[in-house]
């Protein structure tokens, strides 16, 4: 299909790249311009903790080479920031005053770190992790430091804590909630993960907050809510991310937690689409719209948005909260509704905790369907759990073998059902 459209993609990470490819699958000729504030080839923030740990070299962080853009016949503007978006005129204004018109635009600007108000810690000075520059700054600090404090035991905080520990620093994690990784793991699972962190020599302080930072001659002196004081060479703030929506606040586009989009990932302005960490889209469960800052979600949304932008109608299946986490050779993942304890009668929870072997398995089932799944150090493949939840396959085999060979039960269910599913799709296509 040749649409002859002029498309603009703001953002050059997973969502933007997935959209670019799905646009080109449909229309090989339309004009596409990508605007990114980065100065060079794209990389994923997900890989930065490994970069800090020294597990990957900088040149290997690149998601795509420059030749990718010429292969895709797309022009890319590096180091340019969008200041304003005007859906009425169908025009974007860049920071240097240049204007760029469009037929359709995709907002895929990701998210920015939240810096809570803490006395003695200005928003500008606060150390966060989002870009390669941030990562390099942390690496530079790590070279001359002995002790680091990380505020927030979410995924980023936990991963950077691990990276710095691997570099030989003393690390202290401070978490506001009563457990680590509060959004993904329940108390039992979190305590196993915390145990492994403690074994590795990382100090974890829970239910406590940083309230003041005082700059000393050699080190920072931090005061916590409980009155405790700790000294550190540097402090990283990793309390969470928020959608990067500043530049469209004046555009009249509806914004909730993130940019609100419909099932086609279209915002309240029909020519503007949004995908990835910045978007607030339909959730997989229920009717609500949620912000889901994960790579998989960015790719899924990017693909759907790209197709819709060139007129191939596709509906988004819904964001499924999930994450996988490899720490010191241990694997933990959680997919879907993972925090439920089964207090509601309609919800069935199967749980097996093995503190000695530091392993854990938990399934959440409603109406005979799997809706949530948490595993620590299990053989079950995370992708199979996701397929089960997304497809709503029957869980009988899995429930029956919950206490013994759960991995095989998952694999069997998926083999039997995906075979059927492929056959059904083939028949549909033949018709």
């Amino acid at each position: 299909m040749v649409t002859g459209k002029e498309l603009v993609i703001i953002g050059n990470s997973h969502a933007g790249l997935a959209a670019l490819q799905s646009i080109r699958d449909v229309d090989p000729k339309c004009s596409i311009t990508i605007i990114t504030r980065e100065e060079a080839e794209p990389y994923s923030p997900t890989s930065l903790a490994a970069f800090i740990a020294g597990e990957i070299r900088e040149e290997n962080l690149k998601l795509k080479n420059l030749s990718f853009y010429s292969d895709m016949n797309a022009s890319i503007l590096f180091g340019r920031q969008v200041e304003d978006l005007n859906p009425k005129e169908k025009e974007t204004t860049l920071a240097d005053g240049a204007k760029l018109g469009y037929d359709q635009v995709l907002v895929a600007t990701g998210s920015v770190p939240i810096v809570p108000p803490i006395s003695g810690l200005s928003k500008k000075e606060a150390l966060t992790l989002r870009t390669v520059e941030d990562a390099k700054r942390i690496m530079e600090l790590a070279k001359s430091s002995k002790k680091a404090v990380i505020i927030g035991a979410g995924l980023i905080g936990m991963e950077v804590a691990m990276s710095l520990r691997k570099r030989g620093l003393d690390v202290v994690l401070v978490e506001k909630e009563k457990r680590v990784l509060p959004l993904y793991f329940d108390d039992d699972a979190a305590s196993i993960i915390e145990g492994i962190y403690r074994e590795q020599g990382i100090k974890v302080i829970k239910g406590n907050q940083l309230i003041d930072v005082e700059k000393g001659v050699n080190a920072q002196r931090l005061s916590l809510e409980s009155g405790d004081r700790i000294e550190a060479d540097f402090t990283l703030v990793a309390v969470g991310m928020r959608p990067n929506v500043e530049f469209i606040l004046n555009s009249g586009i509806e914004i909730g937690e993130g940019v609100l989009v419909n099932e086609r990932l279209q915002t309240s302005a029909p020519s503007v689409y949004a995908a990835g960490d910045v978007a607030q889209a339909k959730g997989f469960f229920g009717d609500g719209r949620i912000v889901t800052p994960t790579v998989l979600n960015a790719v899924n949304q990017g693909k759907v948005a790209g197709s819709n932008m060139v007129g191939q109608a596709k509906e988004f299946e819904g964001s499924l909260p999930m994450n996988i986490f490899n720490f010191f050779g241990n694997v933990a993942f959680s997919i879907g509704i993972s925090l439920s304890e089964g207090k509601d009668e309609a919800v069935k929870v199967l749980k097996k905790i093995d503190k000695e072997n530091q392993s854990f398995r938990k399934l959440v089932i409603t109406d005979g369907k799997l809706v949530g799944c948490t595993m620590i150090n299990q053989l079950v493949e995370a992708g199979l759990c996701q397929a089960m939840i997304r497809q709503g396959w029957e869980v009988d085999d899995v429930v029956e073998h919950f206490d013994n060979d759960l991995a095989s039960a998952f694999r069997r269910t998926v083999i039997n059902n995906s075979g059927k599913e492929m056959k059904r799709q083939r028949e549909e296509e033949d018709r």
Partner: protein
Amino acid sequence: MTISGVRLKENYIRIHPEKCTGCNMCLYACALKHTGDTDPAGSRMIIVPLDGEKKGYVPLNCLQCAEPYCTEVCPTGAITRNRNGIVSINDDKCIGCLLCTLACPYGGARLDAQANMSMACDLCNGTPECVRLCPEGALEFNGIENVRLQLENSEDLMSKGVPLCAGCPAEMSLRFILRVLGKNTILYVPPSCATLTITGMGELPSCKIPSVHGFLTNSASFLTGVSRHDRRAGRRISMVVYAGDGGTADVGFQSLSGAAERNENIIYICNDNEGYMNTGVQRSGTTPYAAWTSTTPYAASPIPAATGEVGRGKRQAAKEMPWIMLTHGVPYVATGTVGFLSDLELKLRKAMATEGFSYIHLLNPCPTGWGFLPEKTITLARMAVKTNYFPLWEAENGRVRITVKIRAPQPVEEYVRLIGKYDQLDKEHLQELQRQVDHRYKRLQTAASVDRFF
């Protein structure tokens, strides 16, 4: 969820679960190859015991999806499809974040605990150990890479460097054909683009087997004589004509038709680029409907039509040579392209084994005459098949079989929009072309559904 990501794969291990006895040999083979130790924990493959009504085992492995989801979610771009068409993980880039294991709905990627990175089957880059060592034959390796490996040791019978246009598939396909047919071949090339591939540029020919550059009209009758002499002398050499579409469908047709009717021992290969391409892109009998050539221009074209056909490209539909040859009652007829080499290889081997006349019709997209960039030749050869514009089929003794079935054919528009000669095609003519494609495919399906076509 991309449950349907698996289609039109180039390389994969075909699993026959009914033959698997669960002996775990594949796991040991895989672990040994990748970790240097037979501990099955290092195996990329796993064996799943079935339970319930169907007892047995199913080996589970990376499916080498055509559109792999894992390559898109990898945060360092570590998973890519390499030059050989194999999806694999680059160890220098993998950081062990395991997002690929979360994305893959088939359990193809897992944690390699030893290396603390992701692992997935890489088909041992073309020589899978598990397939080699499976004692029950439950694993079978399929794909283009397999063909390359088989032909790796066979000699390239053409010189390096050939004076054809950049991206010309006539040279690619002839080089491949001669690799499959081998040295025991005599080649006849009538005047056509491909002439240059045998005459060479200087004093020496660029073809290393006996080859003849003859007249345009008598390819088949010339080789009739040579092949009859060959049989009388008690030899059996493959007699191959490699002619253009003009030399086949138009100028050379009467001698071809005669040789086919007499069922001579000839392999006749038509290099169909849909026109007289080396003399200035004139129309031929196989030029498709509505296509531009210098003698079937569009109204706006600055070159007046010699034939007086002014307007919207060629008015007539293309002659269907494979069907014409099939109705001659010859023992073997097939279609092929450079886009599907493993398919073409099999067909060439069948033609070699055929007692009597074989006809193979190759669609060779021509960058110069059709108007597309040289690097798109293979893409176009594949798109022609994916849109059913040029379905791949064969007929052995009249039994018609579709050899590459396309599950979800794309509209022919997806093919023609890539080609310059259809640049001015309007909706009405496009619909007519689509109608012709549908009609022909339906006829092919009907022919394939009957026991014998003749």
